[in-house]
């Protein structure tokens, strides 16, 4: 029966639903998840945004579980990582970046304190067994992820204890042994068969290992310092930086020098300089080709050492000579009494290649009792000669697969292009995935590179300004021994960081789209939907005005033209 008019033409409630305004639409809103910059920037593959969301909800356990999906040793990385995540954080362009690094440490320590276990179960006994050589960060991470993926692991280590340079090269004031031990202990307890005191080339041969295991991960690290001399001249009592550091960390002894010049700009140089200070050396100089990191210094010109560490070194009285090179050793007989430094800078030559230029007339003398190079390390070739590339490293593709060596993978320092702990952790994870794929005859597709959410796509009106917290530091005058320098954030500070997080490219269920739609064409769902949001577009009525996209704080909604 056709519609009939009502008395006085009254209408019944909500009958407008019969009129589908969706037909007015020329563009439609769509949920679009973009990677958060912090996630993209983390070499270990941690999704900081994901665990910050849980931190805001004060579910620290779940937050930690999110971290260990990628990185099994957050308490370690939460101390020693150079945290590129924070450099990438969009919040940095608003007020100050989220203190992701400190949050990670807080969660890592929380886990140790609470005795939380990894969310995984040991692999079945009959599962294939993989060989991992080297229990440094790369090897440990690889072993851990192999277990997560249901594979058995034999983990070989030359030294009596696992940890690699975490144990041998990082001073305790940065990474307390106890923390390291407990995280490694928890990691090894996942079902890994740990075989200490097995050195490749001495106790193991590559060929045997290749026989015994369907796949191998070689997380061998670097052992030897780069050869160093100034026009062929080297001090008779030359001490290599890394050796000295390792020796000192082991024995706690060091020759009695009054003044030392450390040559280098990396973490080893800085660690060594600070150690020397602690050991009572009055004058500690660091001679660096590059500049002390500062906002106005371009990244390529910054000292590779962790900025935080450099700052602390300066606090502790280490003198850093920027943009300097050593031109000459001052010798009394064969004994070093100083160096001649010169101002240097890397500049492009006519062909555009960067060359280091020494500026004549800027020479200065620096009188020191000892000169210690700390300019990086290379691998001990013993037992792996056939695998080394022309730079003396193993190389490796994105997954760490060593070129032309079926079933051989590597990661960390041994690659020759990754020098950071978090990079090593990431290498271990990728290799583990590659190994599992190899065994299950699955080809690995590198994930498509998705550009992280740009700052411009955020709607900043919805975020209150607020500064990041900084943990308490040990007073300089107390930094004499190995007491940890950096403190940990308070629970409330950590929660505040969760609140400050922009949730770049991810729905944070703030209700803006739902609240502001003039057509009530955004509906709120009870649970998180498959597309990751908490809302459903009601395309029957959406007129495509674009308000929701405009007002989404997180840049999670995009407008696309109707087909």
């Amino acid at each position, binding site marked *: 029966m056709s*519609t009939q008019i009502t008395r006085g033409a009254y209408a019944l409630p909500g009958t407008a639903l019969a*009129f589908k305004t969706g037909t007015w639409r020329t563009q439609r809103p769509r949920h679009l998840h973009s990677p958060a910059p912090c996630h993209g920037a983390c070499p270990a593959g941690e999704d900081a945004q994901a665990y910050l969301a849980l931190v805001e909800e004060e579910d620290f356990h779940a937050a930690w579980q999110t971290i260990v999906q990628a990185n099994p040793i957050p308490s370690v990385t939460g101390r020693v990582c150079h945290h590129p995540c924070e450099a990438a954080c969009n919040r940095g362009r608003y007020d100050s970046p989220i203190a992701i690094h400190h949050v990670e440490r807080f969660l890592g320590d929380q886990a140790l304190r609470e005795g939380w276990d990894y969310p995984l179960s040991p692999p079945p006994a009959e599962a294939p067994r993989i060989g991992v050589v080297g229990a440094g960060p790369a090897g440990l991470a690889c072993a851990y992820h192999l277990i997560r993926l249901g594979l058995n692991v034999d983990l070989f280590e030359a030294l009596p204890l696992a940890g690699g340079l975490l144990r041998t090269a990082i001073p305790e004031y940065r990474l307390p042994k106890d923390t390291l031990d407990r995280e490694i202990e928890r990691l090894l307890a996942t079902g890994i068969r740990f075989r200490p005191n097995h050195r490749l080339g001495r106790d193991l041969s590559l060929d045997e290992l290749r026989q015994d295991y369907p796949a191998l991960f070689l997380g061998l690290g670097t052992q030897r310092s780069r050869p160093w001399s100034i026009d062929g001249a080297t001090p008779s009592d030359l001490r290599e930086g890394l050796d000295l550091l390792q020796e000192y960390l082991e024995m706690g002894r060091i020759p009695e020098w009054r003044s030392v010049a450390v040559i280098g700009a990396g973490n080893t140089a800085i660690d060594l300089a600070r150690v020397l200070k602690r050991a009572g050396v009055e004058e500690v100089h660091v001679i660096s080709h590059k500049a002390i990191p500062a906002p106005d210094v371009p990244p390529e010109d910054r000292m590779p050492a962790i900025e935080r560490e450099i700052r602390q070194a300066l606090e502790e009285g280490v003198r850093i000579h920027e943009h300097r090179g050593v031109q000459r050793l001052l010798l009394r007989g064969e004994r070093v009494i100083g160096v001649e430094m010169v101002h240097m800078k890397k500049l492009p030559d006519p062909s555009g290649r960067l060359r280091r230029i020494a500026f004549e007339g800027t020479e200065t003398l620096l009188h020191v009792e000892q000169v210690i190079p700390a300019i990086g390390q290379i691998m001990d070739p013993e037992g792996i000669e056939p695998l080394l590339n022309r730079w003396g490293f193993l190389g490796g593709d994105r997954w760490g697969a060593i070129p032309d060596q079926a079933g051989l993978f590597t990661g960390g320092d041994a690659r020759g292009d990754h020098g950071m702990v978090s990079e090593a952790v990431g290498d271990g994870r990728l290799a583990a995935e590659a190994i599992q794929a190899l065994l299950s005859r699955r080809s690995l597709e590198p994930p498509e590179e998705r550009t992280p959410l740009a700052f411009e796509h955020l709607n900043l009106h919805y975020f209150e300004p607020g500064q990041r917290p900084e943990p308490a530091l040990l007073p300089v005058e107390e930094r004499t021994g190995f007491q940890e320098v950096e403190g940990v954030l308070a629970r409330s500070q950590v929660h505040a960081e969760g609140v400050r997080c922009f949730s770049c490219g991810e729905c944070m269920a703030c209700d803006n789209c739902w609240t502001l739609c003039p057509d009530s064409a955004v509906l709120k769902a009870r649970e998180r939907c498959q597309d990751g949001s908490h809302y459903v577009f009601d395309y*029957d009525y959406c007129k495509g005005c674009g308000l929701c996209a405009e007002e989404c704080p997180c840049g999670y909604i995009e407008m696309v033209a109707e087909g």
Partner: protein
Amino acid sequence: MDHQCPDPDRLRLRQPRFQGLTSGHRACAGCGAAITARLVLEATGPDVLVANATGCLEVFSTPWPESAWRVPWIHSLFENAGSVAAGMEAALKAQGRDTKVIAFGGDGGTFDIGFRALSGMLERYHNVLYVCYDNEAYMNTGVQRSSSTPHAARTTTSPPGKARMGKRHLKKDILSIVAAHHIPYAATASVAYPPDLRKKVRRALAIEGPTFLHVHSPCPLGWGHDGALSIEIARLAVETGMFPLIELERGGVTGVMPIRNPRPVAEYLRRQARFRHLFQDDAKAREELEHLQAIADHNIEFYGLTGHGPDALDTEGADTAHRGGMRWA
């Protein structure tokens, strides 16, 4: 734990907030008035009677046989919403029903032709919340100037030309006039600050007696901006001081929403076609631009809108997004 995206048909009427204005109305894309109506009703809930003056809201929401309203609603005429609401309230009183009466009027139906009815309703102290959705011109008839149209704005009856720079007169200060009735509560609000708007509606409802809410509601068509920018424009009006968010009780200011860092009015004006003529290279244009800036500065000073510190005074989170939004009851 993720779930299949639910079917809108099932979800639509099962939303955690009451939706008194359903989808299917015929407002322009990005309509501010529609947002105002839905936000107000979210705060009132279903136990209200609504009187609606003639205007966009009424026309786009009830083309017979359809109605987008899910509350009892009546439209009578352009100029009598205040009186119709008063009659409804009198009836409820006589019947001993304690349902609240809401009146909706645009700026035309409130500032101008409906002013007498509004004043009478306020003076007789009817227990009515009168909501003016202010889109600053007669939009329903195609953008003619009203006494709410801002100074120098272009409308079809205040066009800029050789001899004129848009509207010659100032925007009527309706809130002061309303507050001068010595009513218990009169406030301004903006669609750009939904929590603040809802809070003010709830405050008004809690009061026995006449209350007034003046809501700045952008009109993409009449103001000449993209519908996607309605909220941004409304926010700029507040942040520049052009539309201060304030609360008055018994005629005295009892609350203001601070502006963290007042922005130049040009930022607000430049994004709207109705002010485009103010940006031509012309002395008169520059003068009017300064004039509007001065008006904004005056508002900021008069109501003490600037604060100190990152978030100087309490915006009550009106402009902060919260993870998780509104929890399910």
